[in-house]
């Protein structure tokens, strides 16, 4: 993990780039924030690369790549998909970015560690497959695979799609990720059960807009939900369809461009499994219009910006299985 910081220092010192986009510690060591570093001193002081670097840095490049000078960014495999998708949409100026791919063993979730009974953690270091946690109550060891973020449990790919330089060994796509299992499980329920499930989940939404703000695919200058006159910019009663509406539209606006990076669920303060909505769209697209992975390449068209003359009719939704 030290080599990431070394690389950041090296790039700054040899003048390849003038800024570094990386992670720095927030209030707690597990609470890492994306940050831009402009000097070697800043990097030495604050730069971190740890198992808690879940944050996807690619969205910050929309603004950062438009500033003067070159910027280096560290991208994990799933972040690189978002990066390519943004490049495809002409949101990032490629010439101003130096991409360093970072191999990733999956990032960890402090909430999961707490559930495992590891409390009062003050520091974590990696030890092979395990994480050694120093806590207020002594040292504890957790297997990394038990503490992974939800999205890393069903990791779709360990391949950095685009990079100028790679740290560690580049991985492969993982077709056996089982990432649609939960969606399939919900599809098999009755409509009443599904309605109850989603009302329970989505009524917890506090409309903080974190899912929208963090999403690399959600990068409009002006958002449909920012209209104060619409009366939809705030929290509604549980029984109304307002929160469902927000989340359907949020997922719909990124459908077919969503790379399934899982940031929406990671940042949700209410722990709503928002990625399931995005995955439902991805699953439908894969089933109806052929397999498609957003951000995997530079030249295919996203399915919703494309069509064929013999597409299925919308009535297929009524005809396809499921309980009535």
């Amino acid at each position, binding site marked *: 993990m030290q080599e990431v910081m070394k690389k950041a220092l090296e790039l700054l010192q040899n003048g390849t780039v003038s800024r570094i986009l990386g992670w720095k510690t927030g209030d707690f060591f597990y609470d890492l924030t994306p940050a831009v570093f402009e000097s070697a001193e800043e990097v030495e002081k604050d730069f971190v690369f740890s198992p808690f670097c879940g944050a996807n840095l690619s969205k910050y490049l929309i603004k950062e790549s438009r500033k003067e000078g070159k910027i280096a960014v560290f991208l994990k495999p799933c972040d690189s998909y978002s990066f390519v998708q943004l490049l495809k949409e002409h949101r990032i100026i490629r010439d101003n970015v130096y991409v360093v791919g970072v191999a990733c063993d999956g990032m960890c979730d402090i909430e999961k560690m707490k559930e495992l009974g590891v409390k009062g953690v003050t520091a974590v270091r990696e030890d092979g497959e395990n994480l050694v946690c120093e806590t207020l109550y002594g040292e504890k060891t957790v297997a990394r695979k038990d503490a992974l973020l939800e999205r890393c449990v069903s990791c779709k790919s360990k391949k950095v799609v685009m990079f100028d330089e790679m740290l560690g060994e580049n991985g492969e796509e993982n077709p056996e990720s089982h990432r649609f299992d939960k969606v399939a499980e919900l599809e098999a329920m009755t409509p009443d*059960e599904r309605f109850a499930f989603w009302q329970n989940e989505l009524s917890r939404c506090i409309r903080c807009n974190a899912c929208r703000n963090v999403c690399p695919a959600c990068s409009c200058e002006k958002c449909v939900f920012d209209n104060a006159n619409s009366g939809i910019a705030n929290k509604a009663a549980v029984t109304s*369809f*307002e929160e469902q509406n927000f989340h359907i*539209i949020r997922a*719909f606006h990124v459908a077919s461009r969503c790379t399934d990076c899982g940031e929406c669920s990671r940042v949700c303060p209410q722990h709503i499994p928002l990625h399931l909505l995005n995955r439902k*769209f991805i699953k439908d697209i894969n089933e109806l219009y052929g397999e498609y992975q957003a951000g995997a390449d530079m030249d295919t068209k996203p399915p919703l910006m494309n069509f064929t003359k013999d597409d299925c009719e919308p009535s297929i939704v*009524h005809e396809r299985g499921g309980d009535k």
Partner: protein
Amino acid sequence: MQVNGEYKPTIVAFCCNWCSYAGADLSGTNRLTYPDNVKIIRIPCSCRLNPMFILRAFQRGADGVILCGCHPGDCHYTTGNYYARRRMTLLFSMLDFLGIERERTRVEWVSAAEGAKFAATMNEFTAQVAKLGENKRLEDLRCKK
């Protein structure tokens, strides 16, 4: 909506300007009847239909929403309805995923010459929604009078 003690569903029909709206017109000039609780909203093309329009219609008291457009291949703007077809497929599937009755939504292609098809579709769709009863799941009480 209750009319004289009888339940009548509110249907919102989004019709494209070039085919379906003219089809509705034709069914009128042919003196064909379709339920008066079908509210037609004219849109320039079926692909103008923002998914939010559908959800908003439901929130504000619609019991069923139907989109009518030119037959695939006949779009006035050449390709609009192809895009609409994909979008609506995914949106309806998502509504289904959230537990909304799938019979409340429909897409039907109606050309300007198909007045009879328009009336028949509306009759059939209204009957289908009437069977489901009032839309409780999608309504937003703030929007209701």
